[in-house]
């Protein structure tokens, strides 16, 4: 089990845990987090270089119980699992919607370390929910903020902000994590501009190791083949943005 070294609020709905133990993860990879007696769920690594940490939205019983854990307490971690982001090119555009910033933040830092120029479109509902804005700036990314309510930056969706950024500049690759609708929208924009893209996807995940089929997406598995998929893979998914499986394995509309 891993020991909580630091536990802090990032926004009114997200919190970060930094662990005492190290774990070698690639940005975009995830771990299975076990809160004993409550639940186990997948969570992207949000710190992957010096420290290992996760940043999570407090939404269900599991994350509520996690949010109540104090420094020094221990929780179960298995992983890291899946495929992370890979640097392609010298000028990259990252697009984060809400808590989707969690896996992109360490990737921005890694990219800058590799002398890559990074622009970040960071979207959230409201300015209080902008995750890791300062962290991205400190890393050296040029940050373009958008909020649904216009409380900071461009008023509107992250995809609209991306469209305006792309009118003026050209990038070697687009990286996205956020709501599936946003990713579907970005695929269209990326195609129009002839820019390759990678995106991290989310599905209900039980085993995390590629056998239980609960995170199936067109015969591929978010836990093992993803969570980061290439543009070619993303375009091949008929289910993307349309259907997902519920906990029983039933296809439901997104």
């Amino acid at each position: 089990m891993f020991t909580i070294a630091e536990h802090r609020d990032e926004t009114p709905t997200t919190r970060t845990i930094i662990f005492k133990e190290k774990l070698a993860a690639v940005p975009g990879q995830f771990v299975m987090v076990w809160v004993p007696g409550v639940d186990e769920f997948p969570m992207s690594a949000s710190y992957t270089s010096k420290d290992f940490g996760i940043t999570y939205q407090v939404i269900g019983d599991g994350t509520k119980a996690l949010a109540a854990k104090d420094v020094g307490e221990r929780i179960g971690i298995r992983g890291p699992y899946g495929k992370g982001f890979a640097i392609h090119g010298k000028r990259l555009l990252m697009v984060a919607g809400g808590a989707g910033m969690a896996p992109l933040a360490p990737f921005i830092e890694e990219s800058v370390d590799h002398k890559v120029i990074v622009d970040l479109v960071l979207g959230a509902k409201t300015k209080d929910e902008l995750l890791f804005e300062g962290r991205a700036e400190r890393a050296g990314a040029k940050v373009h903020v958008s909020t649904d309510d216009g409380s900071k930056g461009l008023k509107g969706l992250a995809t609209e902000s991306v469209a305006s950024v792309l009118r003026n500049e050209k990038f070697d690759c687009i990286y996205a994590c956020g709501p599936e609708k946003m990713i579907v929208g970005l695929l269209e924009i990326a195609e129009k501009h002839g820019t390759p893209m990678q995106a991290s996807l989310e599905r209900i995940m039980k085993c995390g190791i590629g056998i239980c089929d609960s995170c199936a997406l067109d015969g591929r598995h978010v836990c093992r083949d993803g969570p980061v998929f290439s543009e070619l893979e993303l375009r091949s998914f008929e289910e993307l943005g349309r259907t997902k499986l519920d906990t029983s394995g039933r296809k439901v509309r997104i």
Partner: protein
Amino acid sequence: MTHLAVDICGLRLKNPTILASGVLDETGKSMLAVAKAGAGAMVTKSVGKEPRAGHQNPSIVELQHGLLNAMGLPNPGIDAYAAEIKEAKKSGVPIIGSVFGGSEDEISELAGLIEKAGADAVELNLSCPHAKGYGSELGSTPELVELICRNAKRRIKVPLFAKLTPNTSSISSLAAAAEKGGADAVVAINTLKGMVISPDARMPILANRFGGLSGQAIRPVGVRCVYEIHEAVRIPIVGVGGIGNGRDALEYIMAGASAVQIGTAVWTEGVGVFNKVCSELLEFMEHNGYESVKDMVGVAHSGRR
């Protein structure tokens, strides 16, 4: 000419490797991917009448030589699952429909329904060790196994497989009961009931507390069960439990299995495991002068003093 094709109760398989129930088989498209990877047949997720979410996570524990799981029979229910079978059938590979139920009537009804959905054979899950009121709770006595098989057999025309539990004092009595009840083949073994405790958390890791152990760790148990069953019944046996390479499959075949199922090895080897097992089997056969798999079935029983 050395070949891998096998015939089980009239079911023609291009090779003896079958995807075991519960692994990459909740969706038709995943099964298509497994078929493409070379499986000779595929068993579906165990399906019940209604949608079922299964147990709370943690539902799996990774161990050095296997997995402990308590998924808890999650499935979308037979009505919704029919579409997944239809999709999987596009592979051209035989689909064996696995069903579970809480009574002999429910099980036989489901057997009929999954046949109607297109299953080429029906496998009765009489052996899941971690779902209250289902699986091994019904399949632990010869009397019930015989009754359930008899009822199910009446409802279907396709071959009937009974998947048996090793969590019993005599699996060969269960196999004999399945045969008496009219099962066309038996499948052995399902997972061994087990528990893993986290000393740090001072509690079992699985939310369901106990679960079923699968993978390499249980292969000697599975091979022993198949060996015993081979001496107790005349119907074909499908061996399962810890098969990850050709020699593992050979152990089961020589103990008496006509085909094998592979599940947990997909975790360690990926879906490439089906092709790997097949090519290693073929190599062994060519080196040892066996023309077909059936020539090796049960050979470990001869030559005893």
